[in-house]
Structures are given as C-alpha cells and as structure tokens.
C-alpha cells in the first residue's frame, strides 16, 4: 500500500510498486465486467487541477475516479501563476476550502506537485500528473503494468527485460519516471537520443546511453518512443524534422529489426510520421492502446490506495 502523496517514482519501493500493479490488475478485472463502478470512494472529492492542456491524462484520471464513485471536479487553470494569474498558493487554498480529498495536478513547472505537498497550502493527498520536465509517475506505473502484462505476466517483476527509451529525454517527465521505476523493477534501460536531448547530468542515471538507434533496436524487448514537442524544432536541438525522423524515428525498416516478441510503446499523443511511423503505431507489436486502457486501472489503484478504500474483496 502507498500512502500520503504520489509525487515521484522515487516515492515507490519495489514492493509498493508491485502492490499497485496487483491492485490495478484486480480493479481492472472487476471493472471489465458489465458493471464498471465500485462504491469504494463514494463521498470523496477529487480535483483534477490542470495548468496545462492534457485531455488524455485528465480523462484517464476522471474515469478512474468515477469508476470508484468519487466526485470529480475539473479545474483547468490555463495561464498559471508563472504568467501572473492566480497563484498556485491561492488556487490550492481555494481547493482546501471546498474540501478536496485529493488533488491530481498537472503543471508546467517542475516541482509544482511537491510544493503543494510540502507547503501548508492544502491538506489533500497530492498526485503528480506531470510536473514540467520532472516526472509523471502514474505514466511509469501504467507502462510497467503494460510491459508486465505482455512480457512477464507470470513472473513477479521485470528482471531481464531490455527497454529502449527513444527521443527527447531532456524534456521528458515520462522518461525520468520510467528510468526510476523500470530499473527498480529489475529491467535494463537504454536511453537512445541525440546528445542535445540528453541532460548533462545523465551519466549518474542507472541506464546505458546510446546515440545509435539502429545498433540498439535488435537487442530489446520494449521500444518506448517519446513525443517530440513541436517547439523543439525551432530551437536547434536537431537540424530538421526529417533528419530527426531518419535517425531516431521508429520507421518500418527499424520495426522489422525488432525481435519477434518485442513490443512498441508510446505515451501519446503521437506525431505520426515524425518519431513513429503510422505503420509502427498500428502494427501488432504496438501496445499503445493497451497503455491507455491500463492507465485507467493504474490511476484507480493509486486513488484507491491513497484515499484508503476498503479491501477489494468487500466491494460488491
């Protein structure tokens, strides 16, 4: 069981992470039935506090909360305090006043979730749904869940799974959370990116680094493609979209080099034709839709454990 807040994949031990995956599996089995709803969090208020646009993550949290019968309030505060609107502190105190039990926060500033949790602005449980270029822990959990489902369903952890994370590591909260969680679960992670898109301090991470996608592609079980933000194009991180796509995109020739059992992942939203070709995205090896589906189960498990739901067996 986890308790308190979920701010970083660092907050999870191997045991608590595996526990969450198990809880998610059970919850998924129940809600896959004809009646999708459990009464577990009836009477609890969960606020989706989104300072950045993210329809996918928001609806995933929203449907997770609703399947657990919680009340959901969507608070989309575009134009954060950075652009001198209402401050994060005032927003948090407002949510405290209306009695939020949990706040799911997405913010463009790294550390915004931790600030909410550390300050006295609000008492609610804080769930980090993506903070700047820092972390996105529920994404890492759903990725671990999906990898386990496809490659290690009968085993305990991810020992021996070889994972490539390819693309804009520097700005990726998905990559940071996945490196922490997947290595904790026993997987071997290789980051593949041009040097411009790797952080200077990456040498300290428990990963291998490669600039050569073609060299790595044949020796992996999972290839996780990261989205290239369009605004990077004009900032000289790479010469052109074409050159990037050629060197670091998952195209059909690279797809064919993957081992038979390997899977293709992407946190979405995809830039088809840039970091991933349409063929790769729609191939049988692609588990991208499973990631979205598993996202709901993982977020249910997180809400369930943080807000102290009753034992799952007693639900019906």
């Amino acid at each position, binding site marked *: 069981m986890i308790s308190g807040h979920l701010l970083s994949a660092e907050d999870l031990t191997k045991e608590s992470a595996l526990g969450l995956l198990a809880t998610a599996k059970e919850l998924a089995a129940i809600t896959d039935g004809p009646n999708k709803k459990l009464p577990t969090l009836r009477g609890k208020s969960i606020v989706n506090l989104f300072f950045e646009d993210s329809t996918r993550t928001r609806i995933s949290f929203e449907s997770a909360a609703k399947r657990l019968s919680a009340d959901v309030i969507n608070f989309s505060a575009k134009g*954060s*305090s*950075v652009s001198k609107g209402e*401050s*994060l*502190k005032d927003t948090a105190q407002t949510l405290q006043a209306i009695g939020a039990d949990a706040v799911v926060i997405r*913010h*463009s*500033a*790294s*550390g*915004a979730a*931790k*600030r909410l949790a*550390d*300050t006295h602005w609000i008492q609610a449980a804080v769930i980090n749904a993506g*903070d*700047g*270029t*820092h*972390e996105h822990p529920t994404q890492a959990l759903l990725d671990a869940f999906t990898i386990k489902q496809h490659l290690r369903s009968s085993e305990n952890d991810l020992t021996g799974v070889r994972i490539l994370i390819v693309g804009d590591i520097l700005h990726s*909260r998905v990559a*940071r959370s996945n490196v922490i969680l997947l290595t904790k679960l026993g997987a071997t992670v290789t980051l593949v990116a041009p040097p411009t898109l790797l*952080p*200077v*301090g*990456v040498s*300290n*991470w428990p990963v291998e680094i490669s600039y050569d996608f073609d060299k790595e592609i044949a020796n992996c079980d999972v290839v996780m493609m990261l989205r290239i933000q369009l605004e990077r194009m004009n900032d000289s991180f790479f010469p052109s979209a074409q050159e990037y796509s050629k060197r670091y995109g998952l195209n059909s020739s690279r797809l064919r080099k993957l081992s038979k059992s390997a899977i293709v992942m992407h946190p979405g939203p995809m830039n088809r034709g840039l970091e991933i070709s349409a063929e790769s995205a729609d191939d049988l090896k692609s588990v991208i839709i499973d990631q979205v589906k598993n996202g709901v189960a993982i977020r249910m498990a997180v809400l369930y454990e943080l807000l102290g739901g009753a034992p799952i067996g007693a639900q019906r």
Partner: protein
Amino acid sequence: MIKISRAKLTDGRVVDIDIENKVITKLQTSTGKPTADAIDAGSKLLLPGLVDLHTHLREPGREDSETILTGSKAAVAGGFTAVSAMANTNPVADNAGVVEQIYRLGKEAGLIDVQPIGAVTQGLNGEKLSEMGAMADSIAKVRIFSDDGECVSDPLIMRRALEYVKIFNGIIAQHAQEPRLTVNAQMNEGIVSARIGLPGWPAVAEEAIIARDILLAEHVQSRLHICHLTTAGGVELIRWAKARGIQVTAEVTPHHLLLTDDLVENYDPIFKVNPPLRTQKDVMALREGLAEGVIDIVATDHAPHPAEDKDCEFHAGACGMLGLETALSIVVKTMVQSNLMSWADLVNRMSITPAKIAGYKSQGQDIAIGMPANLILIDQEKSWKVDKNLMKSKSKNTPFHGTELPAVVTDVFHEGEQVMKNGEILDKGTSQNE
C-alpha cells in the same frame, strides 16, 4: 567624544581608543582595566566597518521589499558601514537624477554610507550606454557601473563601456551570464538538475563571459570587476588573468561559499538565486580562491523579496537572498573557523579591499590615530541563531533561517557616531519610509 576601552585588534593588541570629529584621536595599549566613561569592549574584536560592493536596496520602485532606510539598518546589523546600491531599481539608476536621489536618501537615513552604482546601459537593456559621465560628475560621484541582474552581453557595448569609464577611473562590474546559454534557466546544470528536471544554468555560461571580458579588459587596459563568481572554472580564469597582469577583481557571495545545488531538491524558491548555487567542488574552489586572494572580496548580493515572490512554485520564484545580516557570520564559519583565513584576512576581503576597489576613502582604513572612525565591535566567542522574523531587513528571504552561526556584531560606529549599541540600532529619528 566616544571612548572605547579594551578593544582587541586583529594583530592581537588590546587597545583603548578615543573618537572625536569622525576620526580616531587617541590609541594606546590597554591597561587591562576598563576606563571610566568608555564603552568597555571587554576583549571584543574591533574592526574597520565592513564594505559591501553589491547590495540591492530596492528603492526607488520596490519599497515593499526594502527601502534605503531598512536596508541601511540591515547593513548596520551586519556590521557594514558602507554599501553600494545596485542600479536595477525602478526607475533604473541610469542617470544623475536617480543616483543623486539614492545618495540623498542614504544621507538622510544617516546610518551608513550608501553609495549608488550606476547602470552601464540605459534601462539595463544592454543596447546603449547610459550617461556614465553625468553620474560620475553628480554629487553621488559614481565610480562603479553595473547592469547587475542582466549581463552586458554585447561584446562591443562591453568594450566601449570598459574604455569609456577610464575618463573618471571608473570600473565595470559585470554580471557574467551568457544569455543564450541560460534561457529560462532555473538552477545549476548538473546531476541535480538532470534528476529534478529544472532547466539548467551551466557553469560555462558564466565562464564564457568572464573569459571574454578579461581579454577585453586587457586589450583596452581597463578595470573590470566580476560580480558573484560561482564556479571553479571562473576562479581559474581570474587566476590566469591576474598572472597576466590584467586589471581584474572578483567577488564571491557568502551564500556561494556555503550552500550547494542539492538544496534545490525540494523546489523551495528560498534557494533560488542568480547565479545559482553550484556544487561542493565549486564551493571548495571559491573558498580556496578567496583565501589565496584570487577572489579579492566578499560581496553580499543582498536581494530582498516580498513573501509572495518566494511562497510559490520554483519557476515563479524570484531570484535572490538576503545577505547583509548574515554575511560576516557565514565568512567566519566558512573561512575563519576552517582556518583558511585569519581575522586580518577577513578584514582585508570585507573592508579594506572593497573600499580600495570602489575608492571609498573614509572606509576600510587602518585602525590608527587620524583615521576615520567607521568601526565595529564583534563578539567572536558568541553565536546566534538566524530568525527570519527578527531581520532588520524589510524582507525575510534568508536561506539561513534556524541556522546557528558564529560571531555577533554588537556595536557599530559610523563617522564617529555610534549607530548600534549592544545589538540595538540607535534611531536617528528620521522621517523616512521604513
């Protein structure tokens, strides 16, 4: 007349002194007994008042965070008898009118010397030189010019500025930060920034400008001062420049002598400062550089901010920390207690040399007959606990809240008058804004 008895000097002598008409009129070896009618120092250290070349007093423009009066009080509490008010006020101190206003307000507050610094470029925009000559000729007699907060990044403007101030023996104090390498930068770029996902401010962005500017200073034979040095590489560059005979001086802040970038891990903007906190390796190189004299002086970069500018997410937080009231104690802790420097070295780095660089004639002088009486008494046996709520500054943004620090400033004398007595600032009854 003020008499002080049993004051200990940094050379070990214990003396009795008389002060009259702003100067020391008598100095003799103490008999060991307190003199009648004298302030009994009881073996406290008597030093020349500290001199800060880098102070943000915020007035005019941001009187909600500090005024010249509250900043003067903070300075006195920290043992400073002279501060240099940075130009990034609103309006900017880029003309004779504003620097004269600051100078006058300092005089009215009457606690210490407040010497304005003039902006190098109009509005700190880095594009056109401000009227440095007019500021030099004004009653404020400005000699230090700086766009601090912004780097004079255009090499041609920097060259011209260095050349131009030779007319009146001025000096350009550079905030070394290559702007293109620090777009949206939040903290030192390194292992910690990689992990916590904050955009990095690399050491090379500071060093590239230092390297360029020492070469420019050599080429045009001008005086250059580097503000708040923070990197080991920067210390190497200054060492190299001095060995070549280039007229460069450098300062380090107390916080860069003690704090490191891992403190940013909790995203508390109290640790947000520009240039940012660096690594332990940099801290050690800065301490060595200061001990060796490669880094000439300590300057506070005292930067008050209102609570709301620190009570927020890291990106939204303002850069800067309070410095005046803790500077001496931090230097004692990092340099004197670690045996890297003596008290005499400290006086050199915090009083004598800064006064020399700036040309403050009545500051940073020897304690001897006929010398100006800008003096402080320090109880070096005592320690104190920093409490942000007890700061004399109008703001509370000290990163040292709750820290136990050595050395207590007990008494301060400015131009022969006592302005602090046993830790209490003596109110001059000014009508000025707090």
